[in-house]
């Protein structure tokens, strides 16, 4: 029998320590987790481009097949993906910008989020003498399939020598919701009892309510829009009542319009209830 050398023994012990103590790359070490996958369920890398106003950061997430992470309003369950941005002196970070989400259902639970690859954005605007140093980004998420695992990561990106355009960035930015234009043929009406949204000419319309809108029209369940044919044209309409506590609140949501021109995400603003004269 061959004697085991000191170097082999050290190697084996190092291997044991590494295998036992290194968690999944995405696992938050402060949290108990149900399983320790070898492959991370979510990875995130930060990209950046120079813009006319400053810098746009893109947080590019890759989600393992079959799993999903969550939109700003996760829906019935889940947790919004979040990011804490620590820019260098002279910069201010804007809010996290989410592209239009997708619906995930499990039994009667309806959630909003992303599968596969998704890019969230943050704008950095100069607020003084803007140093071109590193930006620190800590993102937290919940990734779910039938079960859920929380995860987080911290990364940095240098603001020096950022490119002005990146092709993948541009494609992802087109998924960000934009304000409705007259061509979109969207009409929003607010009344004392609730609101009504009408979309003409689209093949399919899906509403993604923000957390506040979700609470305001508690009890309403997707699909919110119903299709009618008006003057031989597809017309999608939704009517919802709003609880009185939100009467003076501007409510927001995202409408996904699918039609001949492709898929468009529109940022809907539902004004407060008009005050009595």
């Amino acid at each position: 029998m061959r004697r085991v050398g000191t170097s082999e023994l050290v190697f084996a012990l190092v291997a044991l320590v590494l295998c036992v103590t290194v968690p999944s790359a995405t696992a938050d070490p402060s949290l108990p987790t149900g399983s320790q996958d070898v492959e991370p369920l979510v990875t995130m890398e930060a990209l950046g481009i120079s813009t006319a106003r400053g810098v746009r950061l893109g947080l590019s997430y890759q989600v393992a097949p079959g799993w999903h992470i969550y939109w700003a309003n996760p829906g019935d369950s889940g947790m919004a993906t979040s990011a804490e941005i620590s820019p260098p002196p002279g910069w201010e970070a804007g809010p996290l910008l989410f592209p239009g989400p997708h619906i995930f259902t499990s039994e009667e639970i309806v959630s909003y989020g992303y599968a596969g690859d998704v890019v969230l954005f943050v704008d950095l605007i100069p607020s003084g003498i803007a140093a071109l140093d590193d930006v620190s980004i800590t993102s937290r998420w919940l990734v779910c399939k039938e079960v859920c695992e929380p995860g987080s990561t911290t990364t940095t990106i240098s603001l020096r020598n950022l490119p002005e355009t990146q092709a993948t960035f541009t494609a992802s930015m087109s998924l960000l919701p934009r304000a409705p234009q007259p061509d979109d043929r969207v009409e929003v009406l607010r009344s004392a009892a609730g609101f009504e949204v009408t979309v003409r000419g689209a093949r399919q319309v899906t509403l993604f309510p923000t957390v506040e809108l979700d609470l305001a029209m508690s009890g309403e369940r997707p699909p919110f829009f119903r299709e009618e044919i008006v003057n031989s044209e597809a017309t999608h309409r939704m009517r919802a009542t709003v609880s009185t506590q939100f009467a003076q609140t501007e409510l927001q949501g995202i409408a996904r319009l699918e039609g001949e021109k492709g898929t468009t995400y529109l940022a809907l603003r539902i004004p407060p209830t008009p005050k009595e004269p």
Partner: protein
Amino acid sequence: MLRITTVLFTLLLIPGSGCSPSSAVANTPATTPTSPKATVGEQAPDFTLNDLEGNAVSLADYRGKTVVIEWFNPDCPFVKYAHGPKGPLRGLASKHADGGVIWLAINSGAPGKQGAGLDRNKKAVTGYEMSHPVLLDESGAVGRSYSAKTTPHMFVVNGEGVLVYAGALDNAPLGNGSGAYINHVDAALSNLRENKPVDTPSTKPYGCSVKYGA
């Protein structure tokens, strides 16, 4: 070296405690007369479910007392955190029990789903040092009548049997929140103690989905 490798593999194959699904199936629930839907400001739907010892527990038994209902799945990361050593649910039921508040956890997970089953929940009660009972609702009838979506999803019923709060446990999922920490259940119980209306009667719950059956 072969022997060392064997030892390493053996160590790596030791299953983590609490990670394997429970093989035991809970005993049959008592009755669940739960046709009405829970609505804040209205009478909370009554229910009768069995606890982990097989005792029937009814909401109606606690008329006159404030009751907190906590939707529970011991293997959901949010529940693990909340009932963990530094979690916001650790000791919260005991603290309020001194003031006469009844605290009930309900697991609406269907058999075979994550966190379901008598054995798993018994271990969880011990592991999380829970002082309040876990009731099993394997059919999901009670969960559906309360529109329980997440674990944890919290409900507060006042002494008149009226649902006065429904929503999240707090504003810091997994301990991560922005702004001042608010424990919504604590706040609602504080309002009730002072005979005031609940300031924030509904919030959006967060957490894992309730693992209902089909």
